[in-house]
């Protein structure tokens, strides 16, 4: 009996050993992974009613601030402009975590970052609440313009300064009012959160940054870049109406009769069969290489705050060269599209898009500055100049004539993907000395016919561009 008692004891020692081991894994060995897990809203929940710095726009408007209130919790997070910055600033809530900058820059705002907490030597010994403020590159006036232009539409618009990569305006519609989620009335906040979650139009989704959509003919700018690099810009495609790709995938057709010609005329006529033939001439490896250099494939989608950990979404060009050349199956977010055209506008030098410019101490001292960062020289200056010329022609007498602005030469493209029910438009303005790039995506608008949908998105894009350029022609780019 004693022997068997010992066996029972050993068995318990073993299963308790399992617990020790498992506890060590969860709390020590694997703890960092768990702390950075995308679903982990513990940190942000913990600091919900703690002191918290404000978020300001480049022109000094307050996106989010914490105010003192006389209730059980002493502080309340407020968003003075309500839904205007819903996807940039995000929200913070007691029970449903947070999003946007509130979440990604939580350590700065809550003062948990060491650089914020310890500003001089005395702070090592005195434990007092230090919070950091964040200044973002978004301009309040541009954000207002963007939202006004997008009113009533589902989609996203991004205004970006090509020289620095700063995002000047970023609207994703429909938005939501973060004040409802940060409320101290927890039941109401949770109900609102549930309503937002179940809304089919997904107001919580930051479409500009996280919603990938098929690029369609926008991708032909990449094909054109590849063609120029391969010295194929003079290559003349014989007039054709329909092309069957070599791998027998779906036939690529042109709606208005036959088309063909060199790269410029393909661009001006929106000639899908022609691009497909040119794409086969260029070959998929080259197309893939160029799109990788431009940040479209081979890596995860570009993000304002860097890619979230633990999520790998690598975009690939894995259709045939003919389909790849016209952007079939390659998805990009509005931010990525803006980024792509900003690279072209910036002479082929790819800038990291950014929204956070500075972290300040609560007395206004600059603690950390995020300077413009060149990712790489994706294409040569000459190629970029030729591409801009193509885009300018495209607006003056090509497929994007709806984008033309009087008194200024701009370049741009309009693309419609009717199968997937969305339309794109991009503008580089002015095309000779680019100041802004505006990218707009509209989703499932009531598309009665192609013309109206294209005209709609072009009108919105033009309206944003005109208003932004009119604001202050002197210094839109800020930095």
């Amino acid at each position, binding site marked *: *009996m*004693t*022997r*068997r*008692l*010992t*066996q*029972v*004891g050993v*068995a*318990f*020692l073993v*299963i*308790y050993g*399992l*617990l*020790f081991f*498992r*506890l*060590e894994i*969860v*709390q*020590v060995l*694997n*703890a*960092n*992974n*768990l*702390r950075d*897990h995308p*679903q*982990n*809203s*513990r*940190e942000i*929940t*913990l600091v919900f*009613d*703690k002191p918290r710095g404000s978020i300001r726009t480049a022109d000094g408007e307050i996106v989010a601030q914490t105010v003192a209130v006389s209730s059980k919790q002493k502080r309340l997070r407020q968003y003075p402009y309500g839904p205007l910055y819903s996807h940039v600033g995000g929200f913070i809530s007691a*029970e449903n975590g947070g999003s946007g900058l509130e979440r990604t820059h939580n350590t700065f705002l809550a003062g948990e970052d060491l650089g914020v907490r310890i500003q001089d030597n005395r702070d090592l010994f005195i434990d007092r609440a230090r919070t950091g403020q964040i200044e973002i590159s978004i301009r309040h006036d541009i954000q207002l313009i963007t939202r006004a232009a997008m009113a009533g539409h589902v989609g996203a618009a991004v205004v970006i300064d090509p020289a620095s990569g700063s995002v000047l305006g970023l609207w994703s519609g429909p938005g939501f009012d973060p004040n409802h989620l940060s409320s101290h009335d927890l039941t109401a906040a949770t109900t609102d959160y549930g309503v937002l979650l179940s809304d089919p139009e997904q107001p919580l989704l930051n479409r500009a940054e996280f919603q990938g959509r098929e690029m369609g003919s926008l991708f032909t700018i990449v094909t054109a870049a590849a063609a120029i690099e391969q010295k194929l810009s003079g290559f003349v495609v014989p007039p054709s109406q329909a092309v069957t790709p070599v791998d027998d995938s779906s036939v690529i057709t042109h709606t208005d009769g036959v088309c063909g010609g060199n790269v410029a005329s393909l661009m001006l006529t929106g000639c899908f069969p022609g691009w497909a033939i040119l794409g086969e001439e260029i070959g998929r490896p080259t197309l893939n290489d160029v799109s990788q250099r431009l940040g479209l494939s081979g890596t995860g989608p570009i993000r304002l705050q860097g890619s979230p950990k633990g999520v790998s979404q690598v975009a690939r060009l894995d259709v045939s060269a003919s389909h790849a050349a016209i952007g079939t199956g390659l998805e990009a977010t509005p931010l990525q599209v803006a980024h792509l055209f900003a690279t072209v506008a910036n002479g082929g030098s790819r800038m990291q898009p950014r929204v956070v410019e500075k972290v300040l101490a609560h007395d206004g001292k600059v603690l950390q500055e995020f300077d413009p960062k060149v990712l790489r020289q994706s294409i040569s200056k000459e190629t970029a100049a030729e591409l801009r010329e193509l885009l300018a022609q495209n607006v003056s007498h090509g497929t994007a004539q709806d984008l033309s602005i009087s008194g200024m030469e701009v370049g741009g493209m309009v693309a419609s993907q009717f199968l997937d029910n969305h339309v794109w438009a991009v503008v580089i303005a002015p095309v000779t000395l680019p100041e802004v790039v505006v990218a707009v995506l509209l989703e499932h608008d009531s598309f009665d016919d192609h013309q109206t949908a294209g005209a709609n998105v072009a009108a919105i894009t033009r309206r944003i561009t005109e208003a932004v350029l009119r604001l202050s022609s002197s210094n839109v780019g800020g930095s």
Partner: protein
Amino acid sequence: MNNQRIVELTLLLLAAFITIATVVIAAVGEGVAIGWDAVPYLVGLLTLWAISHLALRRWAPTSNGLLFPISALLQGLGFAFMLRIDPDSAARHFGWSLAATCGFLLVLAGLRDLALLQKAPAYIGTFGFLFLIIPAIFTTNSQQTVGSQVFDLGPVHLAPQQLGILCLVVFFAVWLTNYRFRNTAEHLGEIERLDGDPSRFLPLVSGWLATSIIIIFQCDMSLAFVTFAVFVSMWWVAVGRMVDLTIYLVAVGGSIAIAFGSITELQNRFAAWVDPWSNAEFGAAITRSSFALAGGGLTGTGPGGGSADWVPAATDQFAFVPIAEELGFIGGVAILSSYLLLVGIGLRLATAARREFDSLLATGITIFFGSQAWAAIAVALRLLPPTGSSLPFVAFNGSVLVTCNLALVLLLRISEAVPFISDRTQVLPQVTLPARGGK
């Protein structure tokens, strides 16, 4: 005076210090709502300990001096964390502590000789079985997110299954003692072994039935695990036939397989266990406790600094989570070690007990504590599918606290009858003992 009682007093003072320190540190932290009104409860809890200690001096002076302080430490930590997480229920928790202490005193004073238990095994067994299956028949409050089945009587939650298991432990101890007396090789010698006697399957069949009922009708894997562990270890200690054990394990495995094949809720829980990240029903409790534990890290956030409001059921089923989060991996290990120490002492008592009944009862109660704690912690650590199992002594789950205290008295009573242990070895008990027949 008696050494055991001096050891007990010293350790009780230490436990009191740890409890008070935890409460004080948590109270000065920002955002924790412990006020001065917590002081009477704390004083009351310490008074209850003092009364229990005096009662032990009076009625069981030679019983083991480590058991009560360990339980007191766990209870004190549970109380401290309950104060920090949910100060409003302090009165209720204190009420249960009072009830538990009353039960402790009653059994301590009333049951001077454990042989009394051996006289009425049929009643105890019937009660135990009834308590165990009542929740399966009258489900009044079915399935909160991570709850076990409990009776809601106004403010009072009753979970009679634990008491049922305790009764069954006593019953099995009596039954197995008689069985050993009649049947086993250790008593009869190899030649007369009654391997052919079909009655030897009786305990196996009933154990299998109990486990299966819990799995199939209550969907409570933790409770099933406790029943299974208690039964198997007692039976193994008493009988120890490899062939029978194998048959039994296969049968239990079959029940589990059938249950998983047919019951959606079990499948849900299992799915939540495998992939908690995308499971809306049970996932949040597991992922949040993992995140909270990871947030605590090696040294913890300090009492009051954790996210206990955010972890579901942080005072009951997941009581281990806030403790390990705020006291860190080190604190978690301390809790685990406390239970392991409890198991060690219990099994040591089982080997040293003079009578077989005492020995089997000690085994059963020890495994009852050990497996319950194991199951509760394993759920929080995602080692078992999510079910409701309360951490003995720590969890804010009144009736469980009472049951655990009753079991503790029985263990203390057994320790009193254990032969004298010399001073030198009382903290690390020796394992050798006079041979008592057999191998």
